[in-house]
């Protein structure tokens, strides 16, 4: 096991299909047209010296180290900027080139502090390597050039430092920030020897526009931009490829290690979701895995008011199992259930649902996807036939009009947002449907063509109005509809859409979006060669979430934007494995692969494989479990890696339900909010400590690899297995790969997936079976999975959560880049520096009439409850709308949200709550008493002396 070295080809691969043959140093090679001479040489195994080129960036041609000679051409062109040509004959090394290169290196070195032995980049410095490569033995200008050693380091960023003394002004960092990340935070100030890199206009990194993605650090060939962890710990000695455990982009990383300690995470260039890029969370925020708050010993208590008692694994597991059995004996087998996690692996999720269906003997299993993307599953499977997005991320490279609805990718899905912004810089058009002016609407180098700043809760009306314009203006793709959908169903739906209440003029009145803006956006999307839709929780977390998903699917079919690259309907999934947890049968009505529990055939498959008979009736969903708990019929819950007490709406209702239960078992890294109501705590383990797979938003299954032993002793899958065995259900897996084999043999869309196949292919997008042995990047090509695409009528029904004199404002919620959901992980890293508390964004007008000033404490009250937080006055939100994040437990934002939910799936309506805002002196009584309770219930009893 050593370090994985990825070859740097110097310039990007060409996508041309035309091939060109040339000779380099006497060897013939054939490459796509547009390939650089440098890349062609590297493919032959010849490394031409280089400094300013790297294959993540467009070639730049500034350092002049990569010179070559080409027969028949004058001079010594730079190989990184010279494209190959048919019949070209290239020489990469001769006396003349060697002399020129030495000259270049001499200049660089004379201006560089030569403290190589103590430099943090020692053994990982391209300048050092190049000095070696060109055979530099002396520096004629002496070493007295400016060594800049006195230059001040910028250590303001918590994760990396900038040491200007080492800078060779190659511009790789500036270009990475522009081309890869799309933030444009860096510039080169000055010129010649006095030029230097600077974030913003002589600002520090921390206070600049920089979003700490680390692309510049990765691109820097010297120690100028360097991870603080490397400076502290030294260079890593081995690495393994794994997958980020934060968001649904699913970035692939090399975990670079010393022993069992992570030195740094480096985005993997071969990662097909991220192509070598990442955001601040995946690259830097992994410190939570070893945070002191982490619980590593199992604990039990008989009452939630008791302090915790540390016990052995055996005792904890046996206690949980005996409690579950006792409850079932007394209250029937349906009186217990469990919740799977979208943060855990596919294999772990599969095991939890198996334990519940086969071991508990009921279908009371649900997952946190209930509160985010359950409407996606329902809506897309009804219309297209699969509960998943239609495209891969690369597809955006060919989109011409991009419609983003209720998603804030620059914060929520940053690496995908960088890809999207790149496409926008190439000229694609952008329509944003969002109540708030997100960074995609307007920020440096991004300017949406249309921003439909709708009133929260009117998505369905807006999307239907877009369809209305398209049909009434004759822009529908009737050939596509006749070919791939049922024409009669379409005609009926079109009739409905053409009714006056769906016209832009009518919808303007409901949504506040001018009719002309709706018309313009509809024309833009419908007439683009390729129109793509991306949407997020701003679509699903509404009482009409499912209806909006249906309306979106209708819109895509109406314009023929399905079944090829550049188009499609793409849910931006929140958590790392929310797609996977849904695929793995986490819903109470479906087995893995979205097959309803009432289906005879699928039940037989599992009954045979698992050797038990299975229930054909749907089980309880999370909110219904809590209702049943209040009614006294549901008393035991196994929660793996989920924090419903913080993340689910209407906290008071959740707390009531949990308190009513007799045995709550929480398996997690930390004593989370739900654990405050638990009787058994089983310490979980982080993604660095186990093997498995995650499935990202593009249906891409990727490996998670164990790089350190679990601090708690066991992988989460092993803990579920112990619990199953203690309940009398035999489970004997030796490795997660065996679980995947079981998934593959029982689920057709995964039939071709195995750890061996993943090893071979890197990653696999399901469906993967005999029809698609290497997976399916783009779905519904030529025909829909369900046969014909189905237009489903989805009418706008206003939510019952309405503003009125008492609650005149609409609250909507979201998240920010540096934090992740309930913040259990990110708050335990340096990321906390970027977001110390949740703030309430309020429009200047609304603030003024309430006498609220920026930074004041305000009371936020709804029909469900009240909380207090500080106000931030901004015109990002429209008058009448306020906005907050939910990253800190103290904010208790979900005390405010109501238990209204989506009509079809019960996905809670987080995105619309009628509220009032008023000045306040500080936290509410509930916040203070909740924190007191929370502190009390986290007490761990001292171990008694022997």
């Amino acid at each position, binding site marked *: 096991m050593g370090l994985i070295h990825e070859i740097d080809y110097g310039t990007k691969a060409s996508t041309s299909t035309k091939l060109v043959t040339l000779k380099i140093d006497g060897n013939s090679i054939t490459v796509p047209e547009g390939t650089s001479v440098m890349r062609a040489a590297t493919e032959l195994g010849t490394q031409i010296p280089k400094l300013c080129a790297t294959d993540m960036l467009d070639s730049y041609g500034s350092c002049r180290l990569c010179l070559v000679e080409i027969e028949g051409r004058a001079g010594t062109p730079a190989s990184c900027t010279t494209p190959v040509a048919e019949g070209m004959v290239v020489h990469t090394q001769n006396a003349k080139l060697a002399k020129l290169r030495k000259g270049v290196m001499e200049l660089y070195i004379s201006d560089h502090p030569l403290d190589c032995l103590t430099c943090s980049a020692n053994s990982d410095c391209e300048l050092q390597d190049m000095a070696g490569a060109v055979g530099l033995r002396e520096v004629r200008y002496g070493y007295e050039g400016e060594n800049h050693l006195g230059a001040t380091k910028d250590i303001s960023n918590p994760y990396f430092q900038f040491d200007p003394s080492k800078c060779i002004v190659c511009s790789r960092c500036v270009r990475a920030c522009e081309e890869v990340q799309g933030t444009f935070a860096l510039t080169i100030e000055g010129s010649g020897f006095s030029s230097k890199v600077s974030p913003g206009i002589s600002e520090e990194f921390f206070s600049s526009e920089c979003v700490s993605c680390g692309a510049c650090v990765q691109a820097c060939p010297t120690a100028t931009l360097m991870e603080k962890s490397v400076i502290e710990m030294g260079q890593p000695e081995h690495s393994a490829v794994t997958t980020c455990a934060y968001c649904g982009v699913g970035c692939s990383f090399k975990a670079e290690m010393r022993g069992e300690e992570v030195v740094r995470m480096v985005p993997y260039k071969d990662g097909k979701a991220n192509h070598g890029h990442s955001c601040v969370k995946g690259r830097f925020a992994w410190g939570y895995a070893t945070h002191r708050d982490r619980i590593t010993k199992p604990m039990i208590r008989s009452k939630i008011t008791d302090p915790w008692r540390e016990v052995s694994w055996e005792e904890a597991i046996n206690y949980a199992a005996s409690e579950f059995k006792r409850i079932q004996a007394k209250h029937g087998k349906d009186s217990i259930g469990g919740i799977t996690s979208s943060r855990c692996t596919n294999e772990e999720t599969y095991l939890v649902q198996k334990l519940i269906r086969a071991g508990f003997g009921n279908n009371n299993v649900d997952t946190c996807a209930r509160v985010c993307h359950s409407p996606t599953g329902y809506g897309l499977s009804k219309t297209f036939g699969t509960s998943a997005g239609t495209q891969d991320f690369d597809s955006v490279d060919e989109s011409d009009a991009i419609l983003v609805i209720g998603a804030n990718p620059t914060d929520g899905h940053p690496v995908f947002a960088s890809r999207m912004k790149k496409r926008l810089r190439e000229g694609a058009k952008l329509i944003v449907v969002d109540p708030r002016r997100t960074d995609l609407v307007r920020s440096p180098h991004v300017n949406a063509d249309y921003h439909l700043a709708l009133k929260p809760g009117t998505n369905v009306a807006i999307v239907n109005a877009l369809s209305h314009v398209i049909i009434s203006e004759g822009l529908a793709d009737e050939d596509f509809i006749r070919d791939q959908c049922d024409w009669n169903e379409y005609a009926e739906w079109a009739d409905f859409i053409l009714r006056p209440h769906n016209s832009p003029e009518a919808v303007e009145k409901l949504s506040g979006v001018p009719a002309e803006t709706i018309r313009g956006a509809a024309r833009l999307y419908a007439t683009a060669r390729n129109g793509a839709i991306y949407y997020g929780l701003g679509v699903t977390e509404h009482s009409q979430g499912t209806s909006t998903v249906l309306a979106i699917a209708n819109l895509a079919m109406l314009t023929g934007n399905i079944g090829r690259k550049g188009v499609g309907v793409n849910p931006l999934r929140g958590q790392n494995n929310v797609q996977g947890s849904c695929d793995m049968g986490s819903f109470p009505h479906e087995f893995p692969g979205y097959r309803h529990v009432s289906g005879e055939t699928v039940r037989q498959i599992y009954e045979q494989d698992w050797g038990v008979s299975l229930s054909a009736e749907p089980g309880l969903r999370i909110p219904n479990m809590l209702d049943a708990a209040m009614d006294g019929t549901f008393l035991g819950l196994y929660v793996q890696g989920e924090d419903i007490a913080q993340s689910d709406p209407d906290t008071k209702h959740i707390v009531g339900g949990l308190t009513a239960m007799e045995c709550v078992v929480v398996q997690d890294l930390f004593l989370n909010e739900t654990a405050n109501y638990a009787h058994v705590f089983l310490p979980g383990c982080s993604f660095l400590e186990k093997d498995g797979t995650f499935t990202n938003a593009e249906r891409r299954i990727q490996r998670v690899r164990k790089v350190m032993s679990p601090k708690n002793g066991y992988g989460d899958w092993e803990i579920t297995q112990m619990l199953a065995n203690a309940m009398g259900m035999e489970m004997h897996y030796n490795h997660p790969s065996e679980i995947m084999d079981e998934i593959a043999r029982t689920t057709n869309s995964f039939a071709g997936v195995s750890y061996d196949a993943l090893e071979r292919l890197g990653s696999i997008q399901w469906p993967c079976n005999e029809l698609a042995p290497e997976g399916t990047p783009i779905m519904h090509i030529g025909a829909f999975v369900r046969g014909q695409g189905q237009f489903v009528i989805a009418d706008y029904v206003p939510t019952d*959560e309405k503003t009125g004199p008492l609650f005149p404002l609409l609250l909507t919620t979201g998240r920010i880049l540096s934090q992740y959901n309930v913040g259990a992980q990110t708050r335990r890293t340096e990321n906390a520096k970027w977001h110390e508390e949740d703030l309430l964004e309020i429009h200047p007008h609304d603030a003024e009439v309430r006498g609220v000033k920026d930074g004041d404490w305000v009371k936020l009250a709804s029909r469900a409850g009240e909380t207090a937080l500080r106000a931030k006055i901004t015109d990002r939100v429209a008058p009448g709308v306020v906005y907050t994040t939910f990253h800190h437990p103290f904010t208790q934002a979900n005390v405010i949200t109501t238990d209204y939910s989506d009509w079809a799936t019960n996905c809670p309506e987080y995105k619309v709550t009628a509220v009032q805002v008023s000045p306040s002196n500080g936290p509410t009584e509930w916040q203070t008493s909740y924190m007191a309770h929370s502190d009390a219930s986290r007490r761990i009893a001292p171990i008694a002396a022997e």
Partner: protein
Amino acid sequence: MSPNPMSPNHTQEKLVYMANQIGKGFTMRKPEQAVLDIADHLKKFWEKRMLAQIFEHLDAGGQGLDNLPKQGLQRLRETMQ
């Protein structure tokens, strides 16, 4: 009306509310189709405790239930018998 979380009949009120919401989701279909779709939806997604509670409510007059979901529930019960 929204269900009152403090009411002793909270779950039942909530189920009525949910059934009505489902009804609204299908209103734009032809009435006969809507009744079938509602029945099918309830059968696919509601756990038996929830169905039992709402059937009990239906027997007691089904107060608060809109017409379409009421018919959907009746249809469902017929098919379950």
